């Protein structure tokens, strides 16, 4: 059964590797999966910013952002926080198990358009998952971009995702810079302590020829947007990615709209100039 004829039929994907990014009740687990069908594996194409419906037969599906960049290889990565019924079931999966995947859905970050510019990502908590493919994509094509700056924070060190990768990124200072933060002081933490919007002001990036992309909790996004404006960023230079409850992923089931915009089709990536016109987007 091909998913071209019936977009609701998922593909099976084998879990190759899993690890925990964070622990606790709302742990975040990362899955690296490959499609079991060779044809699907070869023909699948996605771009940074797109999402997929992943799930477990007998339980259901959730829309999750693809946290790997196509530049990394013929696999997909998903970082999933254990929150509800479906993510609970996904967390049970171990290497060798299968999950269902359909998609990719939505639009993407216009990375082609951004060539020659400085890229600034500002993430909070699990919000780094959709930003990670940008970081990986720009790193793989670093000569096409002027600079890469990553600002990322979480409540505590235990809530930080992709720790090792971000530490590694700090090492190669010639191409990029990476600034990490936690909200509350912890022993052994040598980086910034405070909220992400405050760290943004500390880093003080120049808006000149820069694109800023932010994702995180709504409250963080609100203050990041305010601070970006203070730093002199124009609306057109700011992007974010939204999430809403979704069922179909293809603009039929109705629920993911923010005003006239369907997050599954018109988004999830939105320019701030567009989003500003849609009050429900910040509800």
């Amino acid at each position, binding site marked *: 059964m091909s998913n071209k004829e019936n977009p609701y*039929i998922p593909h099976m994907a084998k879990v190759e590797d899993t690890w925990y990014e964070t622990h606790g009740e709302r742990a975040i687990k990362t899955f690296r999966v490959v499609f079991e069908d060779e044809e699907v594996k070869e023909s699948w194409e996605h771009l940074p910013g797109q999402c997929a419906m992943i799930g477990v*037969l007998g339980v259901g599906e959730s829309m999750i952002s693809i946290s790997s960049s196509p530049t990394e290889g013929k696999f997909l990565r998903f970082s999933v926080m254990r929150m509800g019924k479906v*993510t609970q079931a996904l967390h049970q999966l171990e290497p060798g198990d299968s999950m269902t995947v359909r998609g990719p859905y939505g639009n993407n970050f216009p990375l082609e358009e951004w060539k020659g510019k400085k890229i600034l990502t500002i993430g909070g908590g699990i919000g780094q998952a959709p930003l990670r493919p940008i970081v990986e994509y720009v790193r793989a094509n670093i000569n096409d971009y002027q600079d890469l700056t990553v600002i990322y924070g979480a409540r505590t060190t235990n809530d930080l995702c992709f720790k090792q990768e971000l530490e590694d990124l700090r090492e190669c200072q010639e191409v990029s810079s990476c600034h990490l933060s936690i909200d509350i002081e912890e022993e052994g933490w040598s980086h910034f302590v405070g909220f992400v919007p405050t760290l943004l002001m500390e880093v003080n990036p120049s808006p000149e020829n820069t694109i800023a992309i932010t994702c995180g909790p709504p409250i963080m996004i609100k203050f990041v947007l305010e601070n970006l404006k203070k730093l002199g960023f124009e609306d057109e230079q700011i992007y974010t990615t939204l999430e809403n409850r979704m069922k179909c992923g*293809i*603009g039929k089931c109705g629920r993911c709209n923010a005003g006239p915009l369907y997050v599954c089709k018109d988004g999830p990536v939105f320019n701030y100039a567009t989003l500003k016109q849609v009050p*429900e987007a910040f509800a």
Partner: protein
Amino acid sequence: MSEKVLQKANWSSFVQALADARELWFPVKDGPIYKFAPYSGDVDAGLEEYAYSSVPPKAVVLPQTETMFLYQVGDKEISLPEEKKEKVVLGARPCDARAMDIVDRVFQWDEDDPYYLENRNKTAVIGLACNEPFVNCFCTSLDGSPGSTQGLDVLMVDLGDKYYLRSVTDKGSRILGDAESALEDASGEGSQAEEIIKEAEGKIKRSIDTEGIREKLEEGWEAPLWDEVSRACLGCGACTFLCPTCHCFDIQDEVEGFDGRRCRMWDSCMFGEYTLHTSGHNPRPSRKERTRNRISHKYRYYVEKFDKIACVGCGRCITSCPVNIDILDILSRVKEEL
């Protein structure tokens, strides 16, 4: 196009001929209301007392619950449900057929929805013109008419002792062909039917001038009117479940033993859970936002995408609301106050 006449004396054989050729859906009395159900063989069932169906015939093409695929738990094989049957709907009101035309666009928007389109392509609709419009009808405000043929395959008009039938599509001509033995050729009944329709248009009491509503809905997003018009709302969802253009659905897995199926079912933007995130965050947290979404979807969002209002003026949401929320009152206030 073919024009036929059905003598009411031949009603039973007409219905039987349709039912022999296809799965026949028919307005059936269920307690105090009419709803569409597969024809049970009761050939005496006529349309004499039927005014309109409280539940629209959308269920024929978008079942209230529909199996999308089947599987065995623990297995990776997915199988599709049985192919859908060829169907004919007898006695749909013209507004309900126009509604199908509106919903068709959503299910073909960029990506085809195979379940809906298979059903839709295999369904023929015989519409019954409204000689006596219902109290809350306002189809004429939305480019409709008691005799509109949009979305229909055959238009049927009650002429007293007989029906006049006119095919609108090739599918309609084939349907009339199936029931040929019960029909006679028309001779001038067409103009009589036109007159009845024209007269019926004059009997429609309610109306709204839709000019400018789209723009006002955009400008008046934060207006206090939304608090006021939604205050009485119970969140029961009747307005959406019974709306012929409402098509939103949920998708759920159902498991019994090892037999699993993924199915979809009607859902409603008037329910809090519809938009509730797992985190507890809800972008439409109260009935105010949900009411605004219901009206805005029909009179603004859909219009922006498909250049057409997603309401046919059937009046069901008015008639069925337990607290008398009236979409025409809301729309007039939108026009006056925003």
